């Protein structure tokens, strides 16, 4: 296949990419513009169910962007629905793109634009490592968080590309077909810079605290790359903790960062970030993550992993059933308190961050 863009041939070789046309869509700015021009213009009610949104907007092979950060305001329930619907061959991208690894054993994700895939203080993701060894996932490009963030930002600000001081002299330069090291043409002295093109994933789910039915959306807490992604991606689906009237966004503008015209669909999805954290609403479920990381990232047992994902995802109807499994009403009440103690207050209010074990274990 003929590719439309100039890729670094050394990186193509290092990454063993035979058909570089698979890389094109991520930087095909012109096609994104053409798509955006055809998006619904009027303010119409864009609400649909999560099932409908995933069925309609996620296609096999899509470049799927992670949003939020690890377990903070990340649209985990949308990802779980993508896994339930058995989407195949997605390219994962995001800074970090931690959560993509869950889907790799099931063929949901087959490619990675890698910036960071791991569990931070809880270590590396052994399951991902095994998937790489077994070629269940092909790495299409290696990124630093900063360079990838600038690629999304370039897309947002309408810049075809920009120069960065990240990535220079690292081995990522030869494991990323997209970026180019050139001399800064503004300077008389030699000054290498790394050119980063505007990056355009196909689809992103963004979980927000509030949105109206047209797609105007508000985020509280770190927005990470999500303002840029809402503009950079071809298909944008908002999952919202709460749907509020448009007048609420008109009257309270703090944190409003996504305009309705960028948005293809709006999903009324309370607990859409569970078992992660949704700032202002609920704390992350430590018990789930302790066990999830032990079972799913350890790479120790495929059976335990499958049993875990069957229980929490494949056999789970929706996010409300998921929350029931976490502990239901009791979980909700406790995690509202913990969120407040971790974030909304800083006085010592005597909240206990330890947890009572309620969920099944696999070891």
């Amino acid at each position, binding site marked *: 296949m003929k590719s439309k863009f100039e890729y670094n041939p050394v990186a193509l070789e290092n990454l063993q990419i035979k058909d570089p046309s698979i890389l094109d869509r991520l930087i095909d700015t012109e096609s994104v513009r053409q798509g955006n021009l055809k998006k619904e213009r009027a303010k119409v009610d864009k609400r649909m169910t999560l099932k409908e949104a995933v069925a309609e907007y996620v296609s096999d092979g899509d470049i799927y962007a992670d949003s939020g950060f690890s377990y903070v305001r990340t649209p985990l329930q949308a990802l779980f629905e993508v896994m339930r619907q058995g989407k195949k061959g997605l390219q994962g991208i995001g800074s970090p793109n931690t959560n993509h690894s869950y889907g790799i054993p099931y063929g949901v994700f087959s490619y990675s634009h890698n*910036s960071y895939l791991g569990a931070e203080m809880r270590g590396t993701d052994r399951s991902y490592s095994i998937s790489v060894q077994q070629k269940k996932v092909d790495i299409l490009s290696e990124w630093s968080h900063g360079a990838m963030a600038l690629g999304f930002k370039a897309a947002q600000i309408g810049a075809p590309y920009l120069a960065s001081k990240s990535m220079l002299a690292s*081995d990522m330069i030869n494991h990323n077909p997209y970026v180019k090291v050139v001399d800064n043409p503004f300077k008389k002295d030699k000054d290498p810079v790394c050119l980063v093109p505007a990056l355009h994933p196909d689809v992103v789910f963004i979980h927000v605290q509030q949105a109206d039915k047209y797609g105007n959306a508000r985020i509280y807490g770190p927005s990470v790359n999500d303002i840029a992604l809402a503009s950079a991606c071809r298909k944008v689906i908002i999952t919202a903790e709460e749907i509020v009237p448009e007048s609420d966004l008109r009257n309270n503008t703090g944190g409003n960062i996504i305009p309705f015209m960028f948005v293809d669909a709006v999903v009324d999805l309370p607990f859409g970030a569970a078992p992660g*954290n949704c700032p202002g609403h609920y704390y992350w479920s430590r018990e789930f993550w302790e066990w999830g990381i032990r079972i799913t990232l350890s790479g120790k047992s495929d059976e335990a992993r499958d049993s875990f994902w069957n229980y929490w995802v494949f056999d789970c109807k929706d996010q409300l059933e998921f929350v029931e499994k976490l502990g239901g009403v009791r979980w909700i009440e406790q995690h509202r308190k913990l969120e407040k103690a971790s974030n909304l207050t800083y006085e010592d209010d005597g909240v206990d961050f330890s947890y009572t074990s309620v969920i099944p274990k696999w070891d």
Partner: protein
Amino acid sequence: MSKAQPNPLEMLAFVVAKQIEDKQIVYVGTGLPMVGAILAKKTHAPNITLVYESGGQDPIEGPMPWSVADPVTWRKAPLTMEMSLSFAQAANGFVDVAFQGAAQIDMYGNLNTHVIGDFNKPKARLTGSGGGNDLSSLTENSIIVGLQTPEKFPAKLDFMTSPGHLTGGNTRREAGLLGNGPVAVITQVGVYDFEPESKRMRIKSLHPGMTVEIAQACTGFELLVPEDEIPVTPIPTAEDLRLLREEVDPQKMFITFPPQ
């Protein structure tokens, strides 16, 4: 007060704290650097400002977080920046020091967080860069923290994720990178700096009970040894230890040894 000795992780956290000067802007991740930075703030460096990859600016300390975007890293922060702006903060000269860890560190302070073995046939695939490359490339000074073994301090990296002094001399500046690169390496054995000309790793101080021989035995390349007598790294006072154990990380998330 308690006469208890520090365990190796407590010692690491304490030495991290001592690397921080008052009034600095410190870019921290989770784990020991955060523990050390908060200890510094509670002792000799009350006017430092902590900033995080979440974009959190000067949050109010709370329980130790698992993730750099955890609510604690932007708890009651007056503002949080987008990720691109958080790294721009380093590029634009608003960060004095950043802390880094790695699976492999070479004699020039270059770091590998990508892969052990061959990239396409890895013995172990690791996380990738995350913000590591950016902080190494952009921040004025970086400090490397980790446990020291010959495997973790090899003669040659399997992959170079984050630039230190490259191949020494002026190579870092010639590559277009910003800042001074790594200025210190802190391990359970000692503290290292980089010799100004060659930019090779050099012993700066050794923790109590450690020797040059032990340090070299824990290292896969030749360490430079200063001509003068090598100082012993100061150890935490009982009050430092009390602060660490009771106020900074009372849940002992990062200072339990061996780690859980």
